């Protein structure tokens, strides 16, 4: 039976920057977004640097004043579509498992594989409604 070690989270000394509302902030800046859809790219649309813009998330101004209810968030995809979403608290927090960056020889495990919990997230942004057209 292979045994793979899972190392606990190792939060950075300083919090990573995040443009998302404070409720979604985590020490490493990672967050989760859930879509009941698939993102498609037109041929030739992918950028050369590997990072292809797909749109923007839009939060109401009340995000910055602390009065935001967590429900109003829009995802604008491309030029002509948007979806309504919300920030939901997860019933059970999720650990994000990644392969551990190996700097030293691994202590145990199958063929040197080690995992780590990169982050623990307690909230997710979820878009479960159908996209609607925008001009």
């Amino acid at each position, binding site marked *: 039976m292979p*045994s793979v070690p899972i190392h606990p989270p190792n939060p950075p000394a300083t919090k990573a920057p995040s443009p998302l509302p404070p409720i979604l902030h985590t020490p490493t800046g990672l967050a989760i977004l859930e879509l009941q859809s698939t993102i498609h790219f037109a041929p030739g649309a992918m950028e050369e640097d590997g990072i292809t813009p797909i749109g*923007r*998330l839009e*939060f109401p*101004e009340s995000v910055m004043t602390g009065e935001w209810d967590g429900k109003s968030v829009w995802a604008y995809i491309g030029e002509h579509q948007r979806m309504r979403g919300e920030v939901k608290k997860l019933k059970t927090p999720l650990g*994000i498992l990644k392969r551990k960056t190996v700097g030293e020889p691994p202590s145990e495990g199958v063929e040197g594989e080690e995992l780590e919990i990169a982050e623990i997230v307690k909230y997710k942004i979820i878009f479960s409604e159908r996209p609607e057209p925008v001009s």
Partner: protein
Amino acid sequence: MTQPNAYTVPIAYSTIQTPIRLIELPPALLDLVTSPNPPTLHLKSLPPVPHPTTANPQPHAYLTTPTQTFTIRQVSSSNNTFLLRHADHTRVTTHYPPSIDPLNPPEPEIREETALTSILTSTTTSHLEVLPYSPNPVATLRKMVPAYSDLYTPAPLYGSKETLFLDVPLSRLQFEQGWKEALCFEDTIQVVDEDGDSTTRTCIWRLDPLLTLRVLKMLEEFRLSEGLSWSLEPRVIEDFREMFSEDGSAATRWMPGMVETIIRNVMEGNVHRFTARMALEILSEHGAISVDKLKKGWLDYLPETMRAGAEAWTDEKLVELVKGYSESPTARSVKFVEPPELLVVEGGAAKGAVKKGKWHEKFAAQRK
């Protein structure tokens, strides 16, 4: 159309996707991994079954902490879950100013806009559900580790205690408890390979009832004759080894691991407990026996010096002593049974037991 005074965050997709898995963290696990000195967890999995059936299902994967074990189940979703990582990203756009003279259009403007961007760097359609699981470490190890009565029958389990630990779905604490209670030990044997070369290999066994009771009597008789104390000191062990070499019978081959395990249990005050259990296993091999017969047989197996006190025990006390390894078909009879595979949690079913009919009950309730 952007809402007035909206707060916007650009999102982008990374063509280089990093593989991730999402794993649930129930309260016990969450507290553990967020504690000041969190331990390393371990993921253990059995090899997949090529053609799983109801009788031989795909085995679980297990998550172990230093003290607990959980089973893991993959739950798929029709939704895509993306991991967002944030970084400054410069977006280059081309703007075409309005032209007054169509014959001399102005040069397009190249604009660079840098903003902290949410980048979708990983995608998954499933997560790992973590479920409570209470294995009985003794049952697990008794199933895996052969009882030693002879070097090659049953076939030895090659490996060390540590390699065995990697192969069992138990936490370290559960494994150590099971190792001790199942009376397991390590020893080395000489193995001749196909080329005729002899090598030393470490093997794992657990105490065999009949051989153990016989060896216990030998050790006690020798100890009394030589005026030795029960001890694990090397000089005492050496004295016992010499006694074995003089005995010369194949059935009492010197196995230091076996002898040390017997001595350790005597020193820890467990002699009545493990000998009663062994006597029950031997005497009820062909069916249940009376408690009276168990008591008589057990006292016969015990060295004379260890019978004191046990002779005065009541039947109820003796039945209590073998609890966990016995069942009583009638009020006056008892039979050896293997310990249950799962521990029963107080007030509920065994953790890890499958709740049958759950989905049918759920849909039936919804139809009402």
